[in-house]
C-alpha cells in the first residue's frame, strides 16, 4: 500500500510588525507575496565546506501543491546538522527527499538536483533501493519490526543478502554498542523488540539505521514521542554518533537543536531562510525571521 501523507499546508504569513528587531529584515515575506525567488542567508563558514549532501535548486510538489521552493543547501561532512522551522515548513519533506522516501507518496514531482557524495540522487538511472542502502533513517515514532531485537538490528544486512551468522552477530553487537543499548539487551537478543520501552525502541531504530554503515544518518524528530529522560539519552547518543557519521536531524525542539547540532538551517514556508553555525543562529541570527523563531515569538 502506498504510504499516504497529507501534503503539508503552507502556513499563512504572519504580520510581524511593531516588534523589536535585531537582525535585518530578509524580505522573505515580501518575496513570497510577490512570487520572487528568495535568496537565503548562508553564513560564510559554511559556504565552501566539504559537503556530503548538496541540494541544488531543489523544488518539490505534492500534486499541485509546491512544498519546497528551490532549496540550495550544502550539508557539511561529520557533525550534526539541524533543520528547524515551524510545522509545515518543509523540513521533513527535505529530509525524506534525501533518501527518496517521498517517492512512495502518490503524485510527488521534483525538479532540481541533489547529490550524495557527488553522486546524483535524482537521475533516471539511479537505483532507489541501492541509494536508500547508503542512508540510515530514524522516524518520529519508534517503529521496530515485530521481530526479535537481533533480527531488527541486522535487518538492513539481511535484505542485502548477508546471512553469515558470525558476521551478523558482530555487526549487531557493534551497532547496539554504538547506540548504547548493548548492556541493556545483550541477554535477550532473541526476545521481541516490541517489548522494549519507547526510548529503548528508538535507540534500537538508531542501531538499525547505523548497522550498515550509512553515509548519512537522517533523523526525523527522533525524540518527539519520548519522555525527557529518554530524550536526553538519545541526544547523548546523537552526539556520540556524530563523531563518526554525518547526521541530519529535523527537530521541533529548539533547545534540542541548540544542544546537539553544529550547524542549523532554519526553514520557513518551504524555503531555506538561514543556514549557519548553531551558536550564530541561536545567539546572533542575521535575519529577523530567524531571530523571532528561535526566541519563540512565532512558530
Amino acid at each position, binding site marked *: *500500500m*502506498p*504510504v*499516504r501523507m497529507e501534503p503539508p499546508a503552507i502556513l499563512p504569513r504572519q504580520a510581524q510588525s511593531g516588534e523589536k528587531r535585531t537582525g535585518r529584515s530578509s524580505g522573505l515575506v515580501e518575496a513570497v507575496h510577490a512570487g520572487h525567488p528568495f535568496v537565503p542567508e548562508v553564513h560564510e563558514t559554511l559556504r565552501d565546506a566539504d559537503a556530503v549532501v548538496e541540494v541544488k535548486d531543489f523544488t518539490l510538489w505534492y500534486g499541485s501543491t509546491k512544498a519546497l521552493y528551490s532549496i540550495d543547501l550544502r550539508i557539511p561532512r561529520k557533525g550534526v546538522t539541524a533543520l528547524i522551522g515551524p510545522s509545515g515548513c518543509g523540513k521533513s519533506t527535505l529530509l525524506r527527499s534525501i*533518501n527518496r*522516501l*517521498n*517517492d*512512495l507518496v502518490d503524485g*510527488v*514531482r*521534483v*525538479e532540481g538536483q541533489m547529490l550524495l557524495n557527488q553522486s546524483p540522487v*535524482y*537521475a*533516471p*538511472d*539511479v*537505483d532507489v*533501493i*541501492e*541509494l*536508500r*542502502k*547508503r*542512508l*540510515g*533513517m530514524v*522516524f518520529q*515514532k519508534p*517503529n*521496530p*519490526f*515485530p*521481530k*526479535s531485537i*537481533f*533480527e531488527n538490528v541486522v*535487518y*538492513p544486512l*539481511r*535484505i*542485502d543478502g548477508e546471512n553469515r551468522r558470525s558476521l551478523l552477530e558482530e555487526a549487531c553487537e557493534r551497532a547496539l554498542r554504538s547506540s548504547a543499548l548493548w548492556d541493556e539487551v545483550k541477554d535477550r537478543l*532473541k*526476545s*521481541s523488540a*516490541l*517489548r522494549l520501552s519507547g526510548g529503548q525502541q528508538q535507540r534500537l*531504530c538508531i542501531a*538499525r*539505521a547505523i548497522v*550498515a554503515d550509512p553515509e548519512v544518518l537522517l533523523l526525523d524528530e527522533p525524540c518527539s514521542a519520548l519522555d525527557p529522560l529518554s530524550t536526553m539519552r538519545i541526544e547523548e547518543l546523537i552526539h556520540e554518533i556524530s563523531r563518526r557519521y554525518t547526521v541530519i536531524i529535523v527537530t521541533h525542539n529548539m533547545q534540542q537543536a541548540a544542544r546537539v547540532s553544529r550547524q542549523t538551517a532554519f526553514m520557513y514556508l518551504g524555503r531555506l531562510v538561514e543556514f549557519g553555525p548553531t551558536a550564530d543562529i541561536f545567539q546572533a541570527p542575521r535575519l529577523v525571521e530567524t531571530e523571532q523563531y528561535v526566541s519563540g515569538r512565532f512558530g
Partner: protein
Amino acid sequence: MGSAIVVCLGLIVFMVVLIVAEGSSTFWPGRIHELRLSDGSVVLGVPLDEEPYVTQGEEDAAQVAVARQAGVPLGARAWSDEGLPIRRRYFVGNRDLGQATFRWIPLWQVQSIESPADAVLIEREEWGAFLGRLEGVVHDRLLPLDPGVDQFSSGDADGGDGAVERTQVQTARGLMLRERTWVARGSAAATTRVAQERAEASTRWSRRDDLNLNVIPGLESKIRRLRWQVQKARIEHERMLQHARDPLPLWLWLLMLVGTGGALIGGVRLGRRLKFSSHRWQRLAVPVCWVCAVLLGLAVYVERPGALPDLSGERLAGIEHQAETRIAQLREQQNTAMDELARLRSQDQLVRVIAIEPTRGRLSPVSRSEPDEPMLLSQVVRVVEANRIGFFGRLGVYFDRWGEYLSQAPRDGSAAGGVFPVIVGTVTLTLLLTISVVPLGVITALYLREYARQGLMTSIIRVAINNLAGVPSIVYGMFGLGFFCYILGGFIDSGPANPMPLANWWWLLVGAGVLLLTALGVGGLLRRQSIMGGGRRRRWPVLVALAGWSGAAVLAGWALATTPYFHGFFEEKLPEQPTFGGRGILWASLTLALLTLPVVIVATEEAVAAVPGSMREGSFGCGASKWQTIRRIVLPSAMPGIMTGAILAMARGAGEVAPLMLVGAVNLAPALPVSTEAPFLHGDRTFMHLGFHIYTLGFQNPDSEATEPLVWTTTLLLLFIVLMLNFSAIVLRARLRAGMRSAAL
C-alpha cells in the same frame, strides 16, 4: 438485545446437545425385550421411544375401549394422562425375513414383557441385525446323493454335541445330501463356540479380504494398464502414419539452438546493462531478447531430434506381443488367486450358525433366496448378548462399535459398518482445498492491496469478489463440472479437440509475441513518467498497453488451447475411461477453492491493510525493496489474519455438499484418494464425503428409518472433524501471534 443473544446461543447449544446426544447413543446396546401380545404372538425387540396415539377406525377404537374396560396386564402404563393409548417403538430387525425394521406396539396389547438372558442381537454383513436366540453352531457338508446306499440310517439324532444329522436338500446342483454335525448346542455353548470359530477363521478371512480387495483388483488394474500401453502405441503408430514427414534438418535445428542461447545471453546481459537506461528503445531490447528466446526455445524443444514418434508397424507388433504375453501371465496369477478365494469360500461354507427368532420360528438364513439354509459364521459381525452383559460389557460393545465405525469401510449399502474412507475423503478434500486456496487468495489480496493503483478498477474488483461470496454454491458446482471436469480435464486427457495446422499455430505465437512487445514498449513510455521533471500523463499509452497485454494473453491462451503438439496425457484410456476428464477429488477441491476464495482474499486484504504504514516506511528506509518489505515485514505481521481467512475457508469448504455432488463425491468410492502407490494422491479418483454421506444415508437409503441413528452419528463426526480442523488452525494462529509478541520470528 440481550434476549436475541439468549435465543441465538440457546439454539446453538440446543443443536450441539441434540447432535451429541443422538449421535453418541447410536452404538449403545439396549436390552432386548420379549413381548407376549394379546393375540398370542411373541416379539423380540429393543425398546426405543413411546408416544400416545389416536386410534384409527372404529374397530380399533372399540378394541381399545374394551381393553380399557377389562384392564390390561401393564395397567396404567398403557394409557397416557389424557387417556390415550400408548404405543412403543421397537427395533425388531430381521429385515431379510420380510418384516419392517421397526414396529410400533400398543402397550395395551402386551401381555407380558420379559428380558430373556439368551436373547441375542446378531450383527450381520448384510440385511442389518438379527434378533433371536442362538440354537447352536453346526458344520454343514454337502455330499453327493448316492441312491444305492442308505445314507440316512447311521445318524444318531439324540441331540447332543457332535450329533450328526443327514437330510436330503434341493440345491442349485440338484438333490444332495447334507451332513450336519452339531459342534455346539444351546445358547451359551453356541456363543462360546462362535467366538472360538471366529478366532480360528480370522486369518482365513483377512486373506480372503486381501484377495478380494487388493490382489485381484491389483492384477486387474495391471492388465488394464498394459492394454492402455498397447492402445497408446497404436494411437502413436496411427499418428505417425498420418503425419509422416522428415524431421527438421539438423543444421537448422542447431542454428535455432544457437539462436536461443544468443537471445538468452543477450537478454541477461542487456538486462543488467540497460536496467536504468533512459532510452526507452534500448530498454525494449531486453524483452525482445526474451520473447525471441522463448519462441526459439519452444521451437527447439518441439523439433528436438527424436521428438517425432518412431513407431513402425514392426515395433508396434513387438509391443503388442510383449503385452499379450504379460497379460497371459497375469491372468494365470489371477486364476490362481480366484481358486484360492473359492477354496477359502468353500471352507467358510462349512461353519454355520443357527439362530431362531421366536415370532415365526424362522432361522437367520444364508441369503434371502435360501431361507432354510442357516447363515455362515463369516456373515456374523458381532453377537451381542444384550441381556446377559452388565454395564461394562455394554461399554465394551459400545467402544467396539465405535472402533468399527471409525476404522472400517461401509457395508450393507452404507447402512452399516464404518466411515473410514469417508473420513479420509473429507480430510483429503479439505486439505487440498486449503492448499490451493490460500496461496491464490493471498497473492490476489497482496496484488490488490500492495501493487495495484487504488482506483475505480480495484473498487470494481473488490465488489466483484464480495459478490462472489454470495453466489449459490451449486453454481460453483456447475462451473466446476463444466470447466474443470469437461474442458480442463478433457484437455489434460486428450489435448485440444480441434488442433490448429502447424504453420498457423506458429504465426499465432509470433503474433502474441509482437503484441506483448508492443505493450512492453508502450509500457516503457509510461514508466518514463517518474517523479523527475514534468510530463503530463497521457491516456493513449495506457490504453494501448492494456490492449497489447490483453491481446497477447488472448492469443497465448488460444495458442495453448489449439496446440497441435499436445495430444493429452491419457488419450489411450478414452473413451472407455476418462482420467481427469471426469469427476474427481482434484476438481472438487479446486471448485471448493474457488468457492472459498473471496473469504481468503477479504481476510488477507484486511490483515495486510492493518499492518502499520510506519513499518513499511521503516523497511523502505533500510533499503528494502517492495517485495522484501512484503515478504519480511508485511506478510509475517499479517499472518494471523491470513490464517483466520484460511480457517474460515476450511470451515466453509469442509461443510459444503451441493457442489460436491456434481464434481466428484460418490456414494461408494472403489478406492481411497490417497494410497501408498505412486503418485500417492490420486486427484482423478472419486471420493466419499461426510456431508454427502449424511445425505445418501438419510435420504437415499431404502430403509432410511433404520439408518437414522447412523445419520446422527455421522453428523456428529462431521461436526467433530470440522471443529478439529478449525481448532488446529486456531492453535497454529495463536502460536504465530504469541511468537510475534515474544520470541524471535
